[in-house]
């Protein structure tokens, strides 16, 4: 299955892209996706060990199970206001 990954701020600069489509086995979790991303090497390997994630625009845990077409965003520490 494919999920879309969105990147922002410092993450985007590390990865060199604002978004990427990743193919994962069925029932892959958020943590599995993060491992796959880090495994891409280069800037991806430098993603922080602990990263917040939103799935379909809601904050989600690492063990959240993904489904085809999910929009997964890596959320750096937020700094609004």
């Amino acid at each position, binding site marked *: 299955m494919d999920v879309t990954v969105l990147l922002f*701020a410092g993450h985007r600069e590390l990865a060199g892209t604002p978004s990427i489509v990743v193919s994962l086995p069925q029932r892959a979790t958020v943590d599995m996706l993060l491992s796959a991303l880090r495994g891409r090497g280069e800037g991806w390997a430098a993603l922080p060990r602990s990263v*917040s994630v939103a799935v379909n625009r*809601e904050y989600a*845990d690492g063990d959240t199970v993904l489904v085809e077409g999910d929009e997964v*965003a890596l959320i750096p*520490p*937020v*700094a*609004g*206001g």
Partner: protein
Amino acid sequence: MTWTDVTYVPIQPAAVLERVGASEDGAVAFFMGIVRNANEGRPVSGLEYDGYRRMAKAQLSAIVAEAAERAESDRVAAVHRLGPLGIGEVSVAIAVSAPHRAQAFEAARFVIEEIKKRLPVWKREHYLDGETAWLDGHVPATERGGVR
């Protein structure tokens, strides 16, 4: 009616203030954040807000809904700016009207505190010396997603 927006258009404080008010309300509290000329002593020439806009809109609506419940008033308005901002420009504006002042103050304060905790926006400061840096922020608490 609550009102929220996450926008690239400059914020007009008076227009946000006009979003609230009802004949049973005796109090209006308003807050806005503005771009300062320095951060921790380092002179700033301007900054830039990046945002996950669709999620930020949803989060801001959720924050405002919680504030409205606490204030027992649906007269809560909040807007956050994105894009490049100069010194003195408004980054965020929040208005609450309620029957009593404690409700209005506390709801306005709640909205800005929650924005800082969980609105998916990021700030890059541009310094006078030409450098830029993404500011350290708050790690948002993850809510268990429930049924997916």
